[in-house]
């Protein structure tokens, strides 16, 4: 929760387990085989600064920065969204799931990044998984894995830190 991971190595696996109202935000550069996954918990930071990945408004720019640093080209970045479920029908949560997915969409829109695929809403928990160079997938608790975006066909990864 509130964490992010980035990889430029084909075969690496990035996972966000147990996304209920949280959003698993995947940013990928399919050509360079670079991917990042953030586990977003709340829509706005409201003045907080850390951890960035926790808040949609901070997670998006932060994840962009980190995947670019790992070798992705900003203009090639595409997003996949998983989660944002309404886990409970009443109570103080005020459908955090919907507010989270809206906030992530808005932040991505501001950065000009297209959402390629998504599995959002409902009322079941999900696990988001990126296998770099293979796919971005979503899996419901007890269900089968659904591939949301194929990552195959990229060229050999630019290693993190290599000069471009």
């Amino acid at each position: 929760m509130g964490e992010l991971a980035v990889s430029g190595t084909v075969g690496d696996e990035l996972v966000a387990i147990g996304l209920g109202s949280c959003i698993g935000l995947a940013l990928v550069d399919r050509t360079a085989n670079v991917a990042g996954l953030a586990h977003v918990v709340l829509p706005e930071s409201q003045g907080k600064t850390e951890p960035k990945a926790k808040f949609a408004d901070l997670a998006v720019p932060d994840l962009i920065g980190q995947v670019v640093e790992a070798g992705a080209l900003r203009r090639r970045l595409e997003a996949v969204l998983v989660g944002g479920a309404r886990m409970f029908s009443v109570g103080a949560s005020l459908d955090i799931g919907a507010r989270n997915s809206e906030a992530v969409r808005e932040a991505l829109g501001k950065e000009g990044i297209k959402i390629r695929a998504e599995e959002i809403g409902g009322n079941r928990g999900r696990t988001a998984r990126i296998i770099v160079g293979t796919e971005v997938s979503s899996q419901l608790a007890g269900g089968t894995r659904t591939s949301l975006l194929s990552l195959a066909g990229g060229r050999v990864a630019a290693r993190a830190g290599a000069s471009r």
Partner: protein
Amino acid sequence: MTGRLNDMQLDALRELANISSGSAATSLSQMLGRDVDLNVPKAFALPLADAVDAAGDPAQEVTGIVLGVEGDVAGAVLLLVPPDGAATLCSLLGVEPGSDVADSALGEIGNILGAGYLMALSSMTGLSMMPGPPQVITDLLGAIVASVLAGAVGHGETALVLDSELDITGEPCAISFLLLPDAGGVNDLLAPLGLAEASA
């Protein structure tokens, strides 16, 4: 509450949880007609992510029973029951596990435990804490706990988790009972004990 809780505060909260869960155990015992054992609760105040991990394996499928809490202290009460435990509770109540009636039955158990727990806390602290209707959800532990924490604690950096384990004698059924006060609620619980932070 912005800072970390010190040992004295955690001890006080653990003691509150201890006494409250004793009351809850008695209620459950009466409902099921079985002896209910109570393990000394763990009290931890951790950043949200760590609190989810401390509650258990996020990938484990569990049944969660959530009750919103309103009043002087707001937040949520969350009971976590592993699948075999949920089946045991159902059969003890004479309902088919996994059926719609099962969810109602589990909700009822949540209601009774939650109300018992909150009533005891209320009388010890002089603070009102009223449970809302229970919601039953079977899903990944991580998804359930994170969603409840996000709703109950929100921008609080620290999640306060008071974890009591109720064991029903002769039946394998460990129930984790978590009291998740919102950011202001932690301070409110400590104030009657004279242990609140200087700045509210």
